[in-house]
């Protein structure tokens, strides 16, 4: 009897110990892991306006209490973040210690930012290994976007990776399926080619009084909602050209992996021409307002029940659009799929540490803290943004019966698309050039022109190529040429 009791106690002890080890092994980096910060100088950072950050700011106060380092937060609208920070970084003022970075600016600012591995080696008791272990849960796509020449410059905290939103309830409707098959000769399913997208956009464009799912419409219906305004059209075109295997310029590398040159190849120009032509074709089936539309109008069109497909939209807006649709069309339901070609525009808002910072130690730990599981969860649950951390997106809390639609669906989409897209990101031109930020802004204006009939598609391509070469020659040291 005594023997059995000891065996039982031993087994229970082993179980408890094993469980404790598992818990410890899974424990995420958090406030308690930040060591004593020696430098107590206050640090400054910019934070976007909007609800997403309201709650995180409360968590930043906990950081202040725990570390004794004051964090001064300046809140500005996202379109002015770049110009404000750029001036301070270039002038080396060190005014912003923690830098708010859109991933396409990472290379451009790489001379003005600390590599996070360098700071980890200097300040982290666990060293670079500890840092790398913690970030392995972050999306590989977004981590790569936050690298410059192989070094991790920034850590992403929320993503705007794109996807295709469509009215799942309409696609699942037998009446619509039968009508579509009768007209086009193949099954109605989420489009995977431009022809399918065009057919479906045409099929769903209807006038007031026509039927949808057997019910008469009390408004005009559009096949697609797009963002052809001079603000986000380039993100849509990026999805298109990446999906066709093209880019704004091709990155040519040396055998050792360093960048040799950028070449705007004939293939790149053909892909661009095809993308612009197809985009303009599709506008026939889009609401008139699309010519000045940004994300909010495109989502509102779909949420109001006026449009069936958003071919390219930021996945982070899926829940908002789905909620709006539920309010306006109670039986409406959205689905989220990869964009045509499976390589949607990607990126994230991220944080890095300025080289001119007067307190890189505290800035580093603040960046780590905001990228931590706990902070990201707050940003996601209360701020409504989608975390860059895959472990968080796969948290069962977001995949229960109540949360699966629309939240869990978006989380699953993001994790899947990141896995599928990871091999391609390293070659995207945006994330290899110091001129990315400048060219990105230029593209908004130039790519919009043919849609508003301010230029032809050929003139647009010429202007885009010329300005890409001009800006890259001015802001990057890597040579660029046109093939």
């Amino acid at each position, binding site marked *: 009897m005594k023997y059995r009791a000891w065996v039982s106690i031993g087994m229970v002890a082993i179980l408890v110990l094993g469980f404790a080890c598992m818990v410890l092994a899974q424990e995420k980096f958090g406030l308690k892991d930040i060591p004593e910060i020696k430098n107590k100088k206050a640090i400054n950072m910019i934070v976007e306006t909007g609800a997403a950050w309201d709650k995180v700011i409360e968590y930043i106060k906990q950081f202040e209490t725990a570390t004794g380092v004051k964090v001064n937060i300046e809140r500005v609208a996202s379109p002015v973040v770049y110009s404000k920070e750029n001036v301070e970084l270039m002038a080396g003022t060190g005014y912003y210690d923690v830098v708010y970075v859109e991933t396409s600016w990472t290379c451009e600012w790489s001379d003005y930012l600390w590599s996070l591995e360098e700071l980890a080696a200097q300040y982290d008791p666990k060293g670079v290994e500890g840092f790398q272990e913690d970030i392995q849960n972050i999306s590989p796509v977004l981590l790569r976007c936050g690298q410059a020449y192989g070094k991790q410059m920034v850590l992403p905290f929320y993503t705007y990776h794109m996807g295709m939103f469509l009215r799942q309830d309409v696609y699942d409707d037998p009446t619509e399926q039968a009508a579509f098959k009768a007209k086009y000769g193949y099954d109605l399913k989420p489009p995977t080619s431009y022809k399918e997208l065009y057919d479906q956009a045409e099929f769903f464009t209807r006038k007031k009084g026509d039927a949808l799912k057997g019910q008469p419409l009390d408004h005009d219906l559009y096949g697609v909602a797009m963002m052809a305004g001079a603000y986000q059209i380039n993100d849509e075109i990026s999805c298109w050209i990446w999906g066709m295997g093209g880019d704004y310029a091709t990155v040519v590398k040396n055998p050792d992996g360093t960048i040799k040159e950028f070449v705007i190849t004939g293939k790149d120009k053909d892909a661009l021409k095809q993308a612009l032509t197809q985009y303009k074709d599709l506008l026939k089936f889009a*609401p*008139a307002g699309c010519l*000045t539309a940004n994300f909010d109008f495109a989502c509102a069109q779909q949420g109001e029940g*006026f449009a069936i497909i958003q071919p390219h939209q930021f996945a982070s807006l899926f829940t908002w659009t789905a909620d709006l649709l539920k309010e306006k069309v109670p039986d409406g339901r959205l689905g989220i799929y990869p964009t045509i070609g499976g390589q949607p525009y990607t990126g994230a808002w991220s944080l890095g540490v300025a080289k001119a910072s007067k307190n890189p130690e505290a800035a580093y730990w603040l960046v780590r803290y905001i990228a931590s599981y706990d902070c990201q969860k707050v940003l996601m649950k209360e701020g409504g943004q989608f975390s860059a951390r895959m472990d968080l997106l796969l948290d069962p809390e977001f995949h229960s019966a109540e949360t699966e639609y629309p939240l869990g669906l978006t989380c699953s989409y993001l994790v899947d698309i990141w896995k599928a897209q990871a091999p391609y990101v390293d070659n995207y031109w945006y994330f290899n050039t110091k001129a990315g930020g400048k060219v990105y802004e230029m593209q908004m204006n130039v790519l*919009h022109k043919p849609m508003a009939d301010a230029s032809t598609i050929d003139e647009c391509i010429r202007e885009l190529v010329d300005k890409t070469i001009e800006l890259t020659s001015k802001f990057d040291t890597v040579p660029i040429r046109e093939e």
Partner: protein
Amino acid sequence: MKAETPWETRTDFAVVRRSTVWEILTSEKYFKWTLLIPLLVVLAIFMLYPLLYCAYYSFHQWGMRGEAIYVGAQNYRQLLNDKAFLEALYRTLKVLVICVSCELLIGLGLALLWSRNFPGENVVRGLALFPLLVAPLILSLLWNFMFEYDFGAVNLVLQALGLNKVYWWSPERALYTICFITIWQWFPFATFVLVAGLRSLPKDVFEAARVDGASPWYTFRRLTLPMLSPLIMIIVVLRTMWLIRLFDPLYGTTRGGVQTELLDWIVYRTAFVYFDIGYGSTMAIFSLVLTIAVCAVMFKILMKALGGAH
């Protein structure tokens, strides 16, 4: 005997002593300049220095990285052949003419109505001031939503009245929509300046005209308008200066798209989006010279009008 200057003071020993800086600054002759020093310093730091800096960079190529490269007048030559810039300039002048004319006409019409006493006049005038009190950027965002094709308030009202929806942001109409937003915000400025002017006009002149049997139209044309002309010119000069720098209505609506890019937007895009500081400075200097030239001509007319009014 030599006349005493503020720099020198005679002593009992007939030795000339130089005045201290304090004595000079507080002397009768120079005190007025002393009072101006703070203002001149502020102007020199915040206006003259940036202006000279801007002029300097307009002859250079610089992207905020490395040394600025001297390029002579190349930026200016480029400007004269820059189709996008010339188009923006043409649009700006178009907006200028449309907005100033409409604001003046609406302002004058309302001023004539509101210069009289009527029940609820304070409420009406208070409400009319409202557009001026709202931040221009917020206003442009609001109008952007109101003019939306499918669910904007304006088209919903048109539909409720049995009219067709209008695509306000089409490439053909967008610039006029921008003009409308600007006029809507700024007509109260013209109105209130002219109301104040009308209320301060001498009554005896109008009474004499009435006794002489002058018609209301004749009185308006020959008395009211000439006497208001200095104020009208002030409105025109100020609005011209502000309209050449029109920016906010674009930021919240088209962001320079659908063929609405104006002068200030292209300067902003070049200097603070592309960070092409050299070329952006050239554009800014051109914009400044244009404003000065237009305003100088108008100022001359204003002075003439003031002389005529007196």
